[in-house]
């Protein structure tokens, strides 16, 4: 089984330096991309690979790049942004890639930037990733030294600077347009779309925002081609994916597996199955803002379209497991408290709806709930649905709630009827 993204990552070891990375054949893709391919060739290639964005929404990366205006009238200044904010609770995949092999990311960024003809790129790094910050700073310096960054890269005349920006903390910064505002030094409020960042992004200039994992794939696709990439996955969506599991399993962690690997295999084989004495009740397949999958979905193939077909989302591919010793109401309450606090405060339904949801869940959890509270919760799941709010934050927040209300209805009712949380004595 091929694991291109994590092949050179050794747990506990220092990441490869630029020189070491070169020796493994890394940076070869840059030679190829910059010297043998035109930006248009690259976009065609990535389109052909059907690489779907790994940031959570699964938008085809090649298509995103192709939206950047290129004609004579197009603005000269363009930007590439690497979204390394990764604040989705339960998600830790980008950190692994950054800390394990920063040059893979830098190589990906160089090629992506070249493809959209950007001469400046920013890495927007999560505040809490202190170690990643150190590693990235060092790696970027090495890349400059080795001539992969700066002016006249590899003698091609192409120029690129990469800057590292660390966040000041807010989940909303991960939303690409809020990220752009934050990078501009403003409050991280999302922007209306259209216009999309591809036409008016950072400083009003065409901008592409890609996730770390997405960018890490670019050198491999350049090196091995679209057909190779497609052949990696179980299903048709192409490539491998970092899958993670946290919660009460024997061996929580992160694995690179073919995209479309089934859930049972990941939980039972890789994560070692549930801890002794704990039963599986459900899982958020791709971070906090995805719908629960339950026992009946165990054999689901985890790719974007298959998970969507089950009413959830692949999201970031990092699973959070709910076990039978954990109160589902408390579990969901924890999530909604997070989402309520992380609302940016711009649009009404999210700003006011999430705190209400949070308060209701808390009172149910504490045994003060009333049956009609469930109606209000249910109402919010559609009220805060996609399109109704300004950005995807609130709809994401509603995913675990709406599926939780469906799958764990009895548990909610027990709280209400027994007037206390059955999981607490």
């Amino acid at each position, binding site marked *: 089984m091929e694991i291109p993204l994590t092949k050179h990552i050794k747990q506990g070891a220092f990441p490869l330096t630029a020189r070491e990375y070169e020796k493994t054949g890394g940076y070869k893709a840059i030679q190829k991309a910059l010297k043998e391919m035109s930006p248009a060739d690259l976009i065609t290639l990535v389109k052909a690979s059907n690489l779907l964005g790994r940031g959570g929404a699964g938008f085809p990366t090649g298509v995103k790049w192709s939206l950047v205006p290129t004609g004579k009238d197009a603005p000269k200044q363009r930007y590439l942004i690497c979204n390394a904010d990764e604040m989705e609770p339960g998600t830790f995949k980008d950190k692994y890639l950054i800390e394990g092999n920063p040059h893979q990311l830098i190589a990906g960024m160089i090629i992506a930037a070249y493809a959209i003809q950007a001469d400046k790129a920013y890495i927007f790094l999560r505040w809490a990733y202190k170690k990643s910050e150190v590693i990235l700073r060092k790696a970027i310096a090495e890349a400059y030294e080795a001539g992969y960054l700066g002016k006249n890269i590899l003698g091609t005349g192409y120029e690129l600077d990469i800057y590292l920006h660390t966040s000041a903390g*807010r989940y*909303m910064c991960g939303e690409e347009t809020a990220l752009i505002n934050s990078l501009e030094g403003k*409050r991280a409020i999302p*922007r*209306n779309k*259209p*216009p999309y960042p591809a*036409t*008016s992004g950072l*400083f*009003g200039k065409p901008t592409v925002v890609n996730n770390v994992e997405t960018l890490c794939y670019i050198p491999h696709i350049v090196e091995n081609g679209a057909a190779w990439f497609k052949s990696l996955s179980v299903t048709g969506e192409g490539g491998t994916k970092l899958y993670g599991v946290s919660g009460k399993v024997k061996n929580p962690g992160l694995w690179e597996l073919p995209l479309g690997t089934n859930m049972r295999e990941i939980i039972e084989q890789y994560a070692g199955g549930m801890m002794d004495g704990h039963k599986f009740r459900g899982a958020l397949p791709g971070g906090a803002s995805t719908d629960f999958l339950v026992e009946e979905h165990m054999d689901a193939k985890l790719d974007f379209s298959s998970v969507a077909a089950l009413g959830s989302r692949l999201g970031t591919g990092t699973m959070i497991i709910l076990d039978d010793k954990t109160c589902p109401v408390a579990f969901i309450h924890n999530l909604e408290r997070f989402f*309520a*606090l*992380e*609302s*940016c*405060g*711009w*649009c*009404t*339904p999210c*700003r*006011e*709806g*999430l*705190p*209400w949801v949070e*308060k209701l869940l808390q009172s149910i959890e504490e045994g003060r709930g009333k049956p009609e509270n469930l109606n*209000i919760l249910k*109402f919010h799941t559609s*009220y805060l649905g996609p*399109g*109704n*709010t*300004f950005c995807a934050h609130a709809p994401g927040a509603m995913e675990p709630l709406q599926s939780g209300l469906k799958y764990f209805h009895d548990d909610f009712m027990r709280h209400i009827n027994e007037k206390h949380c059955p999981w607490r004595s």
Partner: protein
Amino acid sequence: MMVKIQIDGKYYDGKPGKNLLETCLALGINVPHFCYHAAMGSVGACRLCAVKKYKDANDRKGRIIMSCMEPVTDGMIVSVEDPDTVAFRAAILESLMINHPHDCPVCDEGGECHLQDMTVMTGHNYRRFDFRKRTHNNQYLGPFINHEMNRCIQCYRCVRFYNDYAGGKDLAVFGSHDHVYFGRHEPGVLENEFSGNLVEVCPTGVFTDKTLKGHYTRKWDLTNAPSVCVHCSLGCNIIAGERYGSVRRIMSRYNGSVNGYFICDRGRFGYEFVNDGNRARKTLIRSTKDKILEDPPPDVIDSALSAALSGSKKIIGIGSPRASLEANFTLSVLVGKENFYHGVSGKEQKLINTALQILQKGSAYSPSLKEIEKADAVLILGEDITNTAPMAALAVRQATRNKPLELGVKAGIPSWNDTAQRELAQDLKSPVFIAFPFQTQLDELAEDTFRASFEDIANLGFAIASAFHESAPPLKFMSDEMLKMAQKIYNILIEAKNPLIITGIHSGSADILHAASNIAEALNLSGKKVSLSFLLTDCNSMGLGMMEGKSLDDAVDIVNGGGVDTMIILENDLYRKADKEVLDPVFAKCNTVIVLDHMMNETSSKADILLPVGTFAEAEGTLVNNEGRAQRYYRVLPLEKSEPESWRRIRDLMKIAGKTEAASWTEFDDVVSSMTDTIPAFSKIKGHMPDADFRMLNQKIKRQTIRFSGRTAMNANIAVSEPKPPQDPDSPLTFSMEGSDESPPSSLVPYYWTPGWNSVQSMNFYLDEPNGSLKGGDPGIRLIETAENSSLSFFVPGELSFTPKKDEWLLVPVYQIFGSEPLSASAPAIKERIPSPFILVNKQDAEKTGKNEGDEITIEISQKILKVKVKIDETIPSGSAGLSFGLPGMPFVNLPCWGKIK
């Protein structure tokens, strides 16, 4: 071209480029909304304007969209009444009411509250939220605005108006999620000149009018009248509201060609001079020159007046640029045209005349405020417009957005998509150049500034003109800096599609006006139309300028020459227009000085006979603004609660004087007819504004809303019977809640109200489209039209350039929005914002005198000794200084002039 759209099964015409919400509002369809404001565009934050959009005729399900963010496209199918969206909008209100205090009974906004309206309109009426509400602390925001943050519904309109639209710096949004706070970094005075608009922009009671609070009355209990602001020459339209005989508040009155949705703080909060204790309220008489004014019995008044009027050999009348055309006209009839003086200094009169001539004969177009907003390149010559014509500054601020907006629209971003537009534009602006002796607030928008004496600012203008056209006379003095700047400005103006020059008379420099005219004419010869806006000093400077009459200097001469027995001064404090040393002997020399004024000031207290008259709130009148637009204001106080208007007073004096013209002047319209017949320049006014006998289905227009309350209780301490409403013979308006239910003609709208919309948002339903013209056309009639062919020749450049003198400073006037205009300066709230008299000097010059910021310094100006505070301003050129103009406690100084440093 229009597109066809289908709304709830009916077909309508829509304008492409507009958004769906604006389109619905223009069609009179009630679509609830909060964050959208026509002047500020859409941001899609509140989510209240949700409607359904269907892909095509087969789509039954549709999709919720925000109408404010949706461009109108041909064939689009939408529904406002769709049950899903009805429920969704109610849910938005439920969300907003979660934390909103249910304090409507004690809230200033109550009854005129956008939030109340939307709550009712969406049908949200049952509270399901049973947790505690979040609360906030309030801040002290200065004398104008009251802050009550708990009422906030986070629509972000306040910061968008205050910062993005008006360029304010000291209001922001703090925090995030459901703890966002709109206020200042720390409590303190809101400094922006347009802060008062927050009162109207805020859809609920967070920002309310503190002056109204000081004498609060329910808004539906106000009697209202359409009026025109009297505090500068721009003529912004206002609504005055009255209760129990005092004016309670001023609101902006929409005029799509003038002030649009907004007014400045001087206009909004300056009104309290009307209720001031310092009002002239009684007829006072001085028995002999050495006595004080007394309040005598009527027969004494009668005999004093008839002695002064019928016993005089010569009577002269001094008019006023702050009195209506009608008041000035009656005075000129009383004393005879040849004895009518304008009551402005010779210098000022010449400046006004020059401006008028340039506009009448030249090729430049006199733009309205709205047209100023449309300019794509602006040159400001010698005016600090934020302080002399505040709303013009707001308009220029909007004009700087034209270039970015054009770029945005080209990139496919509609102009109403506000945040997207601003994000794309970043710091791109249409060019503005400002030539002024020191920094002004608008400098932050300027592509470049030129700081020099007024002479050299004029020289710069001449230099630009001569760069345009070889026939424009070149000037003698030209520094390299000036040449470079002239070239730069030339390059911008020649590229512009819609260039604008703003100048005015506050500098006292005719050369500047000449230079502006030369640029316009030179541009015209190069085939380019240019707009030229002259900022004048008073609300009727332009109107008075269009009448025949001599200057105050001429009046002084004639009185000093002997033979004038009686001098009648109309609403004019001459001591603000000429030196005391000049005026005192004039007052002594006349047997009788009759002063008609509403304020006690130096002139009225020097009167031998003081006749109190009504303010703008107690009279009808016509004012001509700087654009040349004649506009009518209407009384809000009935005669019973007012002092008589100046024209009525003068008419009575005419009767005493035995003048027969007055016999037929019983109503305001009689004076107007007589005036428009007599003075050709005003002939257009007649018929433009509806006569007093105008009726709508036989009914008058009501000044009171249908919810007006307490008619029988108001006077219960006197009598319980309901008094007959006061009569109003002078206008088609009535002091009553009974009257026509039709929408009045645009110039006569006393207040805005549309079923379902009790707040100022109802304004939108009076317009042909949001941001557009009032239905039936914007009020006012332009009296000056640009000549087909210019008959103006180039002016010859002045002979002067600035050279510093030893131990002297060239003093230029520093106008203050709060303080330099005398009427507003006596309003208590404004008073709190008036600085003490000061002088602006640069650091070097101050150091030479051994003074620091805040120290007192003594200046001698033609024998006058002035003590003022030093203010350091790095931008004022060495050898010159700025002297605060017209602040209370300062004597008149004829600026610019040289001042000796003591």
